[in-house]
């Protein structure tokens, strides 16, 4: 049953983008139809690796941002970390969203994993590829030796690869309540509440990124496969733990287009949600991957394969640094100042932040610190009551991170320093995750540590 007439005006094209009701074709006031149920739909939320879902924009939003943030409506945010809390308010006119004659309200679409590359697309692999390609172009400008070292680190380490991804679209199954404008492909609603989160990826895109790095290092296909698989497992764990903080379930799904599903029974109903995206463990490649992973883990043990070590890389860069060449130009000063500002604001330094006015020896320690901070935060998320202040207090997790970090930390801090429980290293997540870390403390009911006093903050903010 419909209660909105089709628009037959010439103005049609201007309106139908966002489900705006035409007043010329609908002269009478429209009485909403009552539905005694919530409506299930899908939309994407933008996730930032420092702040979580609380995205700070510059205030100016394009139509394409409708998919990721909450425009042109801003919720009366009850919980600041959850942009979906509260009812929708139009930020252009003074009315509650969704107004039938405006384009406000929480947007969502009817189909899961539909139109993967459009502005309402659900597939995030292109976003990942964009961020990593940016890092690749930075690596290209380095000298051969340095390039090889950094490429090796990026190839083996799932932490390093994930650190590059600053924002990522997470798809959510949402339930809509309150006033809703139903349109051909989607809805605008008053209230929205996620039920479950998904990360939809395309395996080929991830593999091609690893392949690009592997080719430069002369790695074989099996190792590239293994490294991709490790990355996938890392992403799965990372987002599962993050969304546990928010109190939601998470599922990683992969596109099956291009894989022969003859040997497998195709999934239906809720399992596939009428899409080509299958859960990781139901994907045709999963059993093959497990075999490759098993074989490579065994051979790596026999061959005594060594992961890249942050300490060794740092020492190597230090040795080759042209220490007696001093560049005192204003541009260099501003470049380094920018880095200090980033650190003071708790930015995680990624490879795209290398400035052409600084040497890799200057850049690498800050980069290594943010890698360790990111890795440490992952460990914190996976363990519930977590009082350990630095990574050396845990068993060796090099295999999970894809790099060795002991020599780097041990050369920086003395054993006495690390033995004291209240020592917070420079690599502690509290300095880097300005949005997510306080939320983590709140959710796990841990008291704010004493060292988060003003003294330490002053010291850190340069």
């Amino acid at each position: 049953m419909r209660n909105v007439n089709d628009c037959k005006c010439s103005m049609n094209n201007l309106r139908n983008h966002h489900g705006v009701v035409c007043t010329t074709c609908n002269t009478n006031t429209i009485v909403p139809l009552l539905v005694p149920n919530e409506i299930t739909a899908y939309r994407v939320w933008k996730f930032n690796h420092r702040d979580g879902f609380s995205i700070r924009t510059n205030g100016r939003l394009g139509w394409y941002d409708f998919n990721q943030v909450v425009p042109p409506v801003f919720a009366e945010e009850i919980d600041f970390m959850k942009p979906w809390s509260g009812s929708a308010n139009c930020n252009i006119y003074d009315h509650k969203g969704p107004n039938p004659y405006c384009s406000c309200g929480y947007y969502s679409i009817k189909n899961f994993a539909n139109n993967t590359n459009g502005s309402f697309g659900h597939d995030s692999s292109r976003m990942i590829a964009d961020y990593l390609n940016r890092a690749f172009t930075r690596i290209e400008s380095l000298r051969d030796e340095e390039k090889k070292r950094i490429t090796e680190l990026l190839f083996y380490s799932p932490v390093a690869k994930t650190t590059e991804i600053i924002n990522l679209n997470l798809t959510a199954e949402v339930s809509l309540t309150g006033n809703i404008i139903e349109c051909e492909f989607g809805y605008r609603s008053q209230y929205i509440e996620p039920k479950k989160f998904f990360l939809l990826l395309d395996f080929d895109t991830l593999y091609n990124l690893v392949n690009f790095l592997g080719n430069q290092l002369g790695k074989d296909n099996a190792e590239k496969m293994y490294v991709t698989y490790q990355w996938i497992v890392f992403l799965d764990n990372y987002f599962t733990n993050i969304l546990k903080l928010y109190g939601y379930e998470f599922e990683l799904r992969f596109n099956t287009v291009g894989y022969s599903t003859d040997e497998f029974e195709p999934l239906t109903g809720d399992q596939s949600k009428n899409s080509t995206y299958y859960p990781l463990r139901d994907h045709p490649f999963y059993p093959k991957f497990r075999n490759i992973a098993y074989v490579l883990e065994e051979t790596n043990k026999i061959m005594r394969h060594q992961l890249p070590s942050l300490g060794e890389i740092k020492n190597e860069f230090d040795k080759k640094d042209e220490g007696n060449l001093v560049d005192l130009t204003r541009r260099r000063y501003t470049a380094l100042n920018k880095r200090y500002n980033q650190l003071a604001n708790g930015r995680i330094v990624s490879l795209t932040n290398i400035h052409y006015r600084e040497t890799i020896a200057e850049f690498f320690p800050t980069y290594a610190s943010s890698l360790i901070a990111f890795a440490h935060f992952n460990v914190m998320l996976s363990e519930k009551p977590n009082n350990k202040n630095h990574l050396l207090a845990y068993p060796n997790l090099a295999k999970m991170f894809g790099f060795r970090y002991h020599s780097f930390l041990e050369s920086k801090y003395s054993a006495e320093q690390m033995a004291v429980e209240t020592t917070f290293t420079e690599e502690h997540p509290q300095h880097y995750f300005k949005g997510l870390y306080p939320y983590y403390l709140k959710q796990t009911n841990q008291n704010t540590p004493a060292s988060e006093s003003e003294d330490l903050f002053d010291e850190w903010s340069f």
Partner: protein
Amino acid sequence: MKIGEPLRIIEAVPVPETEPSVVPEKEKVEENV
């Protein structure tokens, strides 16, 4: 991608599931007696 032409205006009010009917206390008492 556009969300398209508006089709209908809805008010979704989820109704909580009704609890199973309980036998009135009076009848219970009578049975016991």
